[in-house]
């Protein structure tokens, strides 16, 4: 049976990877609005994804305000694709139910 990647499996981390896979890059506040996570939890999960190389962050100032732009890396995209593959394999025929 396939193993589910524990880093990707976390609910908020999975949501973040899925969100980031559908955009080129996204700001912290947009991710917060979409996931409705708290600043602390969101920051911690993004840091974890960054540490394993699944997301990359660019910090800059726009109109004197700090902005953190996140994007999914190739490694993160592969990890998400493998996770979905494993998930579908585990669910088998139940996936369409």
């Amino acid at each position, binding site marked *: *049976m396939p*193993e*589910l990647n*524990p880093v990707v*499996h976390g*609910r*908020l981390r*999975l*949501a973040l990877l*899925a*969100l*980031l*896979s*559908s*955009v*080129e*890059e*996204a*700001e912290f*506040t*947009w991710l*917060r*609005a*979409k*996931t*409705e*996570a*708290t600043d602390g*939890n*969101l920051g911690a999960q993004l840091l974890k994804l960054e540490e394993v190389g699944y997301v990359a962050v660019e910090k800059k100032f*726009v*109109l004197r*305000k700090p*902005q953190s732009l996140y994007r999914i890396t190739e490694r993160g995209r592969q990890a*998400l694709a493998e996770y*979905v593959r494993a*998930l*579908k394999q*585990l*669910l088998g025929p*139940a*996936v369409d*139910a």
Partner: protein
Amino acid sequence: MQDHTTEQELKERLGLIERMIAEGRRNTESWGWTFVLWGIVYYVAIAWSAWDHSVWAWPATISIGVLTTIVIASFKAGNHPKTTLNRAIGSIWIAVGISMFLLFLTLGVTGRLTDQHLFAAVISAILGIANGASALILRWKIQFACAIVWWAAAVGTSFGTDAQSMTVFLFAIFFCQIVFGIYGIIAKVQPREQRNPGNA
């Protein structure tokens, strides 16, 4: 790990992925305000040029419109993700904006904006192209209706008297800029129906 994971939980994870991807792909960026702003810009420019026939009416008003758009857009930009779709739509409007700015700046300064029918028809045709392309990318029927109104205006403004031509042009601006812009602002407000991962 999956020993402790129920089938229900796995299905929920799959559903979460699909939901988040759909959420990311949804064009959340609201540009309704730009339509309203540019509707006002056109009305100001028309009123100014009708009032003192200044060659600077259109170039100056469009310049102020461009600056206002850039300032407001840069304030709003941080809240939205960059997507290929947004870039495609943005590219159309930026290219149209640059074309109109250069064309009407040059024609205005050289004093060649004298044929009101031709002028209104050209603006209407350009806006028909931009709205049509944007509507086809977004598959947005209401914006395509605006494109049809602009194309009809491009034909309609070529006929009749100056007053009739201007009436057609003013109606197209009202419907496709002001009404459509307000609709765009209102339509963006949608209720959230799904439980989000941050609340798990």
